[in-house]
C-alpha cells in the first residue's frame, strides 16, 4: 500500500499549465522563459526528517532572490514533489516536472538510491539536476563514465569518498592527537553510499594512525545490534568509526543500553536532527558525528542568517540537506545569470564554472577530467565540514578548532584510556 504513485500536494495548482503542454514535443521541452519565470523542481522525501527541510529551504532561497527582484528580473518559482522515499515515484515526479511543469532545473532528494534512479532521466530529458544530500560516489562516477549523457547531474553534497576524508581529518586532530587513540573498527550500514565511504575509511584511517581492526557492514533493516556491538567489543578498539544514515536510533539506544565502552565517531545522519535526543531517550549522549553545520556555528557569514530565517519561517532547524538545498537554489540562479539562458547545455557549462560561498563553505565543482566530476571540492578554504557531539541534549561543535563551541566529553560507561587533556 505504501507504493501508491505519488505527486506533490499542489497537484491541482498546475493542471492549468498542462493544457499548454499538448502542442509541444517532449525531447525539446518548452522551458519557461516565455512566462518570464525560472522554475526549479524540488523532489524530496516530505515525511522523512532529513528530506523535509529540502523544499522549505529551497522555497526560502527563492523568496529571498525574488524579494531582491529575481534573476535578471525573472522570478524563481519552486515546484515541489513528495516522492515517499521511493525511486519509482521519484521517476514519475521527475517526468512530470520536466514534461508537464517545464521546470528548468531539478533539486532532488537526499537518498542515493533515488538520485541514482533519476540520473539517467536527467540525461534522457536533458535537464539539470542537483542533489542536496545524496552521498554515493556512484553518482559522480556515472558522470565520469558517460559525460555527454550524464553531464546534467551535479552533486551538491559531499560524496562518501569526500566525507570519509573529512572524518579522517577530524579523527586525526580529535582522536589520534587529542586522545592518543590507536585502533578503530568501522561499522556501517550496507547501502549504496557506504561502499565508497568504507573504502575511504580503510584507506585514510591507517594514514592518520588509526589501525583498522575490523570492518562490519550490517543490513539497514537490522533491529538487534547486540551481536554487532559484542563482536566489535571483542576486538577491543579505541573507537567505532560509523557510517549510518537509514538507521540511527536503534544502534544508538542499544549502544547505550549495553553500555558499550567505546565511543562512536563518524557519519550518523540521523544524529544531525534536533529531534534525535528525544527519539533516543537521551541515549545519544556522547555520540560524535560529522556535519556540515550546527546550531550557532558560523561556517560562513551566510550560515547563521539562513538558520535564523529558516527557523522564523518554519519553526524548526534545517537538516543538513536543508543547508545545501538552500545553497543549490542560489547556485542554479547564479548559473542562469551567467549563462544568460535556461538552455540546459549552456546551464551545465555555467554550473561547472560555479564559485560560490554558501552556508556550508565555498562551493566549486570538480572538473571534467576528475573521477568525481561535478562533485564538490573539499579541503581548507573550500568545504571542511564540522564535527559535533551530543552533550546533555544539545549538539555541540568541537571541530574545526576555530569553530569549536565546547570540549569533548563522554558518558560514564565509556572508557577512554588517554586522559582528556
Amino acid at each position, binding site marked *: 500500500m505504501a*507504493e*501508491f504513485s505519488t505527486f506533490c500536494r499542489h497537484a491541482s495548482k498546475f493542471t492549468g499549465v498542462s493544457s499548454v503542454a499538448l502542442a509541444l514535443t517532449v525531447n525539446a521541452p518548452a522551458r519557461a522563459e516565455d512566462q518570464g519565470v525560472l522554475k526549479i523542481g524540488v523532489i524530496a522525501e516530505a515525511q522523512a526528517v532529513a528530506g523535509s527541510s529540502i523544499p522549505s529551504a529551497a522555497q526560502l532561497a527563492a523568496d529571498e532572490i525574488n524579494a531582491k527582484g529575481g534573476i535578471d528580473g525573472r522570478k524563481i518559482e519552486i515546484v515541489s514533489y513528495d516522492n515517499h522515499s*521511493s525511486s519509482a515515484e521519484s521517476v*514519475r515526479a521527475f517526468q512530470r516536472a520536466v514534461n508537464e511543469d517545464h521546470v528548468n532545473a531539478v533539486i532532488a532528494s537526499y537518498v542515493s538510491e533515488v538520485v541514482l534512479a533519476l540520473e539517467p532521466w536527467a540525461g534522457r530529458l536533458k535537464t539539470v539536476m542537483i542533489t542536496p544530500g545524496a552521498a554515493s560516489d556512484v553518482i559522480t562516477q556515472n558522470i565520469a563514465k558517460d559525460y555527454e549523457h550524464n553531464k546534467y547531474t551535479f552533486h551538491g553534497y559531499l560524496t562518501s569518498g569526500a566525507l570519509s576524508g573529512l572524518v579522517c581529518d577530524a579523527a586525526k586532530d580529535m582522536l589520534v592527537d587529542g586522545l592518543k587513540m590507536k585502533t578503530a573498527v568501522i561499522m556501517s550500514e550496507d547501502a549504496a553510499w557506504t561502499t565508497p565511504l568504507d573504502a575511504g575509511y580503510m584507506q585514510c584511517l591507517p594514514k592518520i594512525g588509526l589501525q583498522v581492526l575490523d570492518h562490519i557492514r550490517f*543490513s539497514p533493516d537490522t533491529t538487534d545490534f547486540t551481536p554487532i556491538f559484542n563482536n566489535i567489543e571483542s576486538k577491543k578498539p579505541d573507537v567505532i568509526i560509523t557510517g549510518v544514515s537509514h538507521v540511527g536510533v536503534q544502534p544508538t539506544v542499544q549502544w547505550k543500553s549495553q553500555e558499550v565502552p567505546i565511543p562512536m565517531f563518524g557519519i550518523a545522519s540521523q544524529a544531525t536532527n534536533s529531534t534525535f535526543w528525544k527519539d533516543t531517550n537521551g541515549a545519544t549522549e556522547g555520540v560524535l558525528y560529522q556535519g556540515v553545520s550546527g546550531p550557532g556555528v558560523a561556517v560562513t557569514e551566510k550560515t547563521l542568517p539562513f538558520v535564523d530565517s529558516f527557523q522564523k519561517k518554519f519553526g524548526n532547524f534545517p537538516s543538513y540537506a536543508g543547508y545545501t538545498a538552500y545553497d543549490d537554489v542560489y547556485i542554479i540562479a547564479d548559473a542562469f545569470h551567467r549563462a544568460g539562458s535556461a538552455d540546459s547545455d549552456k546551464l551545465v557549462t555555467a554550473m561547472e564554472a560555479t564559485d560560490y560561498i554558501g552556508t556550508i563553505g565555498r562551493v566549486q565543482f570538480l572538473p571534467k577530467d576528475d573521477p568525481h566530476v561535478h562533485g564538490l571540492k573539499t579541503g581548507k578554504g573550500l568545504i571542511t565540514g564540522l564535527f559535533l557531539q551530543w552533550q546533555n541534549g544539545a549538539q555541540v561543535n568541537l571541530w574545526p578548532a576555530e569553530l569549536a563551541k565546547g570540549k569533548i566529553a563522554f558518558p560514564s560507561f565509556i572508557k577512554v584510556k588517554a586522559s582528556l587533556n
Partner: protein
Amino acid sequence: MLLRILRSPAIWIALIVVIIAATLPLYVSGYVLGLLTIAYYFGVFSMAWDLLFGFANEVNFGPTFLIGLGAYTAGILDNLYQPPIWVCVLAGTSAAVVGGVILALPALRLRGPYFGLTTLVAVLMLQNFVVVAAGLTGGEIGLTVPDVLSIDDKVNYWIALGFMAISGAALYGLSRSPVGLILQASGQDPVQAAALGFNVTKHKLAAFIVSAFFSGLAGALMVFYLGAASVGTFIDVTVGVQVIIGAVIGGRRTILGAAIGAIFLIAMGETLRPLGDLATFIVSAMALVVVLLFPSGFVGMIARRREAT
C-alpha cells in the same frame, strides 16, 4: 458459448472504455497519464492473480514473487548486456513462468492456508536474495536500467493501456473458455472434477503458469517504463497486498473487476494525496469497508444483480 461472450455486455462496455481511455492523452495532463500507466500495470497484476484465486481457487499471497522475478530478470539482463528490450522482457517473462512452476509444483500439494503461506515465504526469500546479491540486483539501492520503452509519457501510456487491454481480453476469454470452465470446476470441487475425468493438478498448474506469464510480462514492461527497479516497487509484500486487495474489491472471479479494483486503488491513493500520509489510511479504510459490506466487489455486485434476474 463464444456467442455468449460477444453478447455479454461486459465485453462491449470494456471495449468502449478502452477506446475512450486511448483518447485520454489528447486532453489529460501527463501527470494523470503517468498515474494511469502505473495503474494499468497493476491492473494486469490483479487480473493475473484473480485467475488463480477466483478460478483455480488457490490463494497466492506471493504475486510479487512472479512480478519481481520478471522485473528483476529483465532489468539485470539489460544492465549487463543491453540486448534489445524485447529480449529482456521475454527473458523476464520466462523467468517468472519457470519460477512459477518451481513454486507451484510442490505447493499445489498443500491445502488450506499452507499454499498461500508457501507463496508468501517465496516472496520473502526473493526479497532477501535481492538484498544479499546487491552486486547483481542493486540491493537496497534498487536497479537502474539503461534503456526505457519511451521517454514520452503518452507513448508509455498507450503501451500500458494496450498491454492491459490485450491481457484483459486474453485472461477474460480464457476464464470464459472451456478450459476456464474446467479450471473453475477443479477449483470448486477437486473430487467431483476428477470424477468427471479432469486432471485437476494439471489444470491448476496451467493456471499458475498463465498467471505467472502475465505477472512476469507486466513486471518486465513496468521496469522499462520506470527505468528503475527496486524491492519497494516490485517485490515488497505491501505491493502484493495491493494487488490482492485490488482484485478482491474489484470483484473476485470476474477478471475485469480485478483491473477496475487495482486502478481504483491507485487513483484513490492519488486523489487523496493532498491528505499526505492519511491517504493510505483512507484508501485502506475504503477497501476494508468494501470487503466487509460488499464482499462480491464492484463488478460482483452488478453481476449478481444480473444473475438474480
